[in-house]
């Protein structure tokens, strides 16, 4: 019975996780309980690694010096943490947070540290067997970082061209997200019939799984069977002057890949901005508009002097998030152009990074590349948030 077997396996996995968390809690519990006793430091350094040694020997059937030394280091780290950070107060919250901390450390801190390690070495298709057999990778110093800026991550496009393209992509996307979202939010903020219905329709692109939405839209940009080209050809047939202006069906995916990606991503990103801006608009007290009416402000003056300054506090974090998401948006680019020998004309930094790592197998190079991208994004976010703080001070 296959189904019974899968239930058994899933249950086993859940029980294993529960046991792991319980062991972790027990381990921390003794630390929390006795960490301020004088005997605890040497005892813990002996008892816990010994226990770990026994368990690992029982599970793997032999002495694992690497594993054991890792554990010893972790134990030292934990003990140091207790000695200098916890200091007896608020032990229960720390105890309850401990499994989450460990989980985060495994899922975020460890990969990041490993990434940094990789970026200073040389792991690629020709050295990976050496790494597997000996556990050693040639040290490369800053070579990978130099290569990031001097060689192409793909077959032809340089880093600088990619960076320029990414900035253009990010800026144009975020601009249209905000402009479109703002326009729709202004419309929805009026007293109109079937408002809830329109709002639901407009949120759909955001509510759908991105992969489904992108692949569906990609189909619509198909040169013969896509909705966009069919409409364009019908339009030019009905209104010949359009054709004389140079409007007609085009090869979207092969001739204008970045434009296609941008259109799709704008469509995908508008709902989020719309929802955020609508929330901001609805929080503005109507008496400001009354006062502005009496003061004699026109519609656009009200928009400029009342609405925009007052939604700035909700808009700024949304724009920061939108910028980071768009900068990092591999989904749309990869799903529209990247599969199986697709074009490089639409690649931005992160999609080039993905290809460098998993199509061209340049692991260390892409690790360095990723850290450069990370530094760029970090800089952008900090600048935005700084601007946001300054705006808040102003109010």
């Amino acid at each position: 019975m296959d189904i019974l077997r899968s239930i058994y396996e899933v249950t086993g996995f859940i029980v294993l996780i529960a046991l792991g968390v319980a062991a972790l809690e027990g381990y921390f519990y003794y630390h929390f309980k006795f960490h301020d006793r004088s005997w605890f430091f040497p005892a813990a350094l002996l008892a816990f690694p010994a226990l770990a040694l026994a368990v690992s020997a029982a599970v793997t059937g032999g002495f694992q010096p690497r594993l054991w030394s890792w554990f010893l280091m972790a134990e030292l780290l934990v003990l140091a943490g207790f000695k200098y950070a916890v200091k007896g107060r608020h032990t229960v919250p720390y105890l309850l947070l401990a499994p989450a901390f460990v989980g985060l450390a495994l899922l975020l801190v460890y990969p990041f540290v490993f990434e940094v390690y990789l970026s200073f070495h040389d792991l690629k298709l020709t050295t990976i067997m050496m790494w597997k057999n000996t556990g050693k990778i040639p040290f490369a110093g800053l070579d990978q970082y130099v290569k990031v800026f001097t060689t192409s991550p793909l077959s032809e496009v340089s880093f600088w061209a990619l960076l320029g393209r990414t900035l253009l992509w990010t800026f144009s996307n975020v601009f249209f997200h905000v402009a479109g979202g703002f326009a729709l939010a202004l419309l929805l903020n009026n007293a109109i019939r079937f408002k809830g219905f329109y709002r639901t329709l407009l949120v759909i692109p955001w509510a759908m799984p991105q992969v489904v939405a992108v692949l569906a839209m990609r189909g619509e940009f198909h040169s013969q069977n896509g909705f966009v080209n069919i409409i364009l050809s019908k339009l030019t047939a009905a209104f010949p002057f359009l054709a004389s202006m140079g409007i007609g069906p085009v090869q979207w995916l092969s001739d204008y890949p970045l434009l296609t990606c941008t259109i799709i991503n704008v469509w995908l990103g508008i709902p989020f901005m719309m929802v955020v801006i609508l929330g901001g608009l609805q929080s503005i007290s109507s008496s400001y508009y009354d006062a502005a009416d009496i003061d004699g402000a026109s519609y656009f003056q009200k928009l400029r002097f009342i609405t925009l300054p007052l939604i700035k506090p909700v808009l700024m974090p949304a724009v920061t998030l939108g910028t980071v998401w768009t900068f990092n948006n591999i989904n749309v680019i990869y799903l529209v152009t990247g599969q199986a020998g697709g074009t490089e004309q639409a690649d931005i930094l992160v999609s080039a990074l993905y290809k460098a790592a998993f199509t061209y197998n340049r692991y260390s190079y892409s690790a360095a590349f990723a850290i450069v991208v990370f530094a760029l994004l970090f800089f952008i976010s900090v600048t935005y948030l700084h601007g946001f703080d300054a705006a808040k001070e102003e109010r």
Partner: protein
Amino acid sequence: MASVQFKGIVKKFKDNLVLNGVDVDIKDHEFVVIVGPSGCGKTTLLRMLAGLEDITGGDILIDGLRVNELHPSKRQIAMVFQDYALYPHMTVEENMSFALRLRKTDKAEIGARVDEAANILQLQKFLKRMPKQLSGGQRQRVAIGRAIVRKPKVFLFDEPLSNLDAKLREEMRVEIAKLYQRLNATIIYVTHDQVEAMTLAGRIVIMNHGIIQQVGSPIEVYRKPANLFVAGFIGSPTMNFMHGKLALDGEHLRFSSGDIKLTIPPYLLHDPKKHDGREVTVGVRPDDVLVGRTADGCSDKVDGVLEVCELLGHRENLYIKVGETRLLATVEAFFDRSPGSAVQVCFNYKNMHVFDKVTEKRISE
């Protein structure tokens, strides 16, 4: 400055009739307070004058000019809102000069007007501050300053003091009274607080259920309330009401309501025969309910039981039960009786009001 006329104003929100034929003439330089309980339509009336609400029926005239379709900014009015509506992202100075800047008034003129208003309201120190850095009273003054700067024909105040605490409210009330003396402007002031209405107004407009109940000077509406609603609304503590029947007893009219039996003097109701058998409500203000030594000289005394005493300092509120009727008497402190004791009560006939029970209109002189 200007006069304002409301002619047969009707306002409907869908099927809900909010104002039903409001007619008021407000003269030049007049301080008119529109007062009424919440939901009576007073703020709607003010917002219609400001141009913030559409007019369903009737005409509004400012200085003889029909303004029904005129944009708010063209009506030469200025409004002070209940929540002040100061633009939170602009300094006090920018708030006050916003309207002038929109009109592209020249800079020297703007500066002069803002300084003048800031001088009147003692805001010079705060011109560079943001609204959130000001206290409630200061914000209120900025909101008034924003109105002054525009030099409007009519000032509109929409419950301007209701967001302030009691002490500040008293101070600002005096400030507004002083401001009126200084500006000598036409002011229309909406409030639900009858104390503000009594103290500030040149004339009071009392509204209820979208209808004007009475228009008159504060002393008129206090001394001669036109109907039961006005009698109960104006004056604090509230007037006592006794429901009963009039009957002719020889030459005199006798009023009886349970255990209370009174002779109604002819100067209150002329032509006693006409009122024989009429169902009426008699109203007496707590000050005119006489208890203890002041009641000694009265003829029609009624017996009651003292239920609760409230000492206010120089005055004392006495809650007295006469038969099934509860009466409130306000007397000089100290009324030296303990709750539960029997007291004798009589009324000051000169200030007694008689209303018809059905029409609720005043029938006494």
